[in-house]
């Protein structure tokens, strides 16, 4: 016996895409960077990442269940896991656990759940948490462990990151040039920095996975990287003594991580291709400005947050071209 026929309008078929599939692919795409960070920073990177992921998921669960009193729990969609990983990727591998927990609470609580959860947050939650920590714990957030201390955690010896050195060079300290690692070392990740940002290669591999599984499009990462390359390239040409080769910029700091994973966050990026390109250009521009002229060595987080704030405007300005509009 055939059951009651369902009545609902077309389309009657679905591509099968789900929120979970997209989120899980992003998690998968983040794995190469995690592996590299483990090789470079050792046990510390794993401790920080695990703590961050667990506390993000826990906070999301607590907030949805006890504060918002929702029946449907959303932790299974994987977005809290991504926030956790991304937050950890933006932290040095020697940061104490309690700071991570506080950061996660801010990321999930203030960055996401106060706005109503996934889909409604104007700012990238991981970056909200990261910037909060940067301002609250400036010393611990800006002292990065030297690579290859595989068993050290909070006791690891620290050193300057390539970005510090680039800043010093721009400030006129030409001796810093000698300490700067080669572009190749920067590219594969053999350098000091936050957990997830060191290896441009691993991040690009993740970007390739995202592109292949059609989770994101090329527009945001490519426009960010191109803008940064062009701007720093011009400055390099003007004065090679003060301003380093653009390749250093592309491979150092959080640029690659931000461009491929943070700026491309669905919720906080524009909806149209055109909008995404403008968004990327804005981030690239702000990043270079902050890196060279701001008081922080890294500008990616701030640049993305600032551009997040104007995404609604970008969505209003950059409408897709309607079919038939050319005929006007």
């Amino acid at each position: 016996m055939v059951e009651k026929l369902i009545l609902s309008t077309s389309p009657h078929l679905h591509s099968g895409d789900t929120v979970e599939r997209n989120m899980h692919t992003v998690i998968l795409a983040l794995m190469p960077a995690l592996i590299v960070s483990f090789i470079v920073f050792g046990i510390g990177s794993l401790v920080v990442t695990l703590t961050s992921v667990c506390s993000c998921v826990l906070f999301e669960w607590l907030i949805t269940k006890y504060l918002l009193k929702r029946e449907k729990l959303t932790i299974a969609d994987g977005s809290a896991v991504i926030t956790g990983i991304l937050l950890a990727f933006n932290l040095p591998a020697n940061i104490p656990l309690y700071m991570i927990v506080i950061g996660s609470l801010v990321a999930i609580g203030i960055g996401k759940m106060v706005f109503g959860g996934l889909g409604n947050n104007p700012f990238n939650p991981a970056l909200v948490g990261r910037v909060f920590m940067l301002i609250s714990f400036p010393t611990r957030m800006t002292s990065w462990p030297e690579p290859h201390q595989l068993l050290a955690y909070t006791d690891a010896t620290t050193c300057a990151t390539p970005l510090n050195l680039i800043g010093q060079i721009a400030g006129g300290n030409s001796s810093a040039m000698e300490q700067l690692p080669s572009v190749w070392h920067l590219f594969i990740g053999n350098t000091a920095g936050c957990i997830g940002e060191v290896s441009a290669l691993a991040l690009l591999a993740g970007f390739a996975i995202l592109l292949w599984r059609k989770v994101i499009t090329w527009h945001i990462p490519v426009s960010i990287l191109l803008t940064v390359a062009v701007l720093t390239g011009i400055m390099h040409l003007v004065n090679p003594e003060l301003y380093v080769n653009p390749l250093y910029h592309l491979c150092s700091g959080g640029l690659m991580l931000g461009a491929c994973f943070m700026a491309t966050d669905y919720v906080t990026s524009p909806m149209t291709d055109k909008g995404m390109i403008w968004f990327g250009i804005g981030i690239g521009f702000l990043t270079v400005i902050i890196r060279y002229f701001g008081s922080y060595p890294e500008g990616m987080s701030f640049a993305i947050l600032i551009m997040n704030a104007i995404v609604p405007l970008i969505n209003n300005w950059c409408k897709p071209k309607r079919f038939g509009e050319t005929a006007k």
Partner: protein
Amino acid sequence: MLKTFKIGGVHPDDNKLTRAGVTEIAELPKQAVFPLSQHIGAPAVPCVQKGDMVKVGTLIAAAGGFVSANIHSSVSGKVAKIDTVVDASGYRKPAIFIDVDGDEWEESIDRSDDIVSDCQLAPQEIIERIKNAGVVGMGGACFPTHVKMMPPKDCKIDCLIVNGVECEPFLTADHRLMLEHPDEVLIGVSIIMRALDISKAYIGIEANKRDAIDLLNSKVAAYPGVGIVPLKMKYPQGGEKQLIDAVVGRQVPAPPAIPANVGAIVQNVGTVFAIYEAVQKNKPLVGRIVTVTGKSVKKPCNLVVRMGTPISQLIDYAGGMPEDTGKLISGGPMMGRPLMNADVPVVKGTSGVLMLPREDAERAEERSCIRCGKCVSACPMGLEPYLMATLGEQGDWERAEKEDIMICIECGCCQSTCPSRRPLLDWVRLTKTTVGGIIRSRNAKK
């Protein structure tokens, strides 16, 4: 590099189960039902009464206005009643019921299989024959063909585009028609070219119908000005506007503009075949090919069906409705209409009968929008479905109109790509209907 349309589109699995299924002739029904509103425009007006005897091809309802179409009996027998029937719209509409008795045809109809290629009629006579035969667009929209053949005076039409795309998954009615009646289709094309005095015609066919492309290519040399255009597979290429864009690269502006405004006219291959039969064989539109299909259907098939046959009869022929059926659809899975039951009769626009298993038919739980923008990149009209749906939910009709909601073609690409499974098209359709009503009442006031 195959041609296709420029904006958006999706790639659903084509699932053409009946690709190789040679058309079979369905049995005559015991009672045939003819809804009076099988086309866009005014319903037809019955011109028979209860108890009248009719033959195949007898006019039973005459066009009820300029934009309307004649309806002919597809069976011989006695008019049982003029009552109401639930049709594919999901509502009860007036219809003529005919009890079938034998299979007697009107004498004026040429029933032979001979191909009549010669046509010396004047354009007006051709259009008149099309009008008398009650031919409508067979792709599903059912717009009266004779109206389409009389474009506004200020539009110069320079090309005919024949729609052999059949981009809807599952359906193969047009594909089989092109394979089994290539000559008739090509003659039909030249008749339309003659009627509209145009020298160029393109037949657009998606690349998954390689055999049809090859067959028509082998015959097309005898028909000057006709070209076969293979197209890359992409839904909704069979949409009129998308097809014109794909084949000749022209984009029809927003309504009220029509294809004629960019010098093109589009006809479905089914319509072209019906035009051939109407003009060369004097045969009104009394039958069509219907694909009866579905993943769990025992014997999916292509059937030549008389209009008015209940769909249940076709389903029985295909091995009965599978146990797991969750949804019965008239048409394809992307744009077809859900049916309440199988008693609905086949009408001029019934291109397929699709039975979806329950797990495919049930919509997954709706989540909040994650603003991924996939609906925006899938929309073939360059709209922002996520925004339209929100505006619809909020009832902001004014803003929706400014965002060009009226150009939406309701293809369903947005909803079928949404990872949050939002019922975007439900909302968009509500918004479009409401805004359309507001615009109409505003125009009426002027």
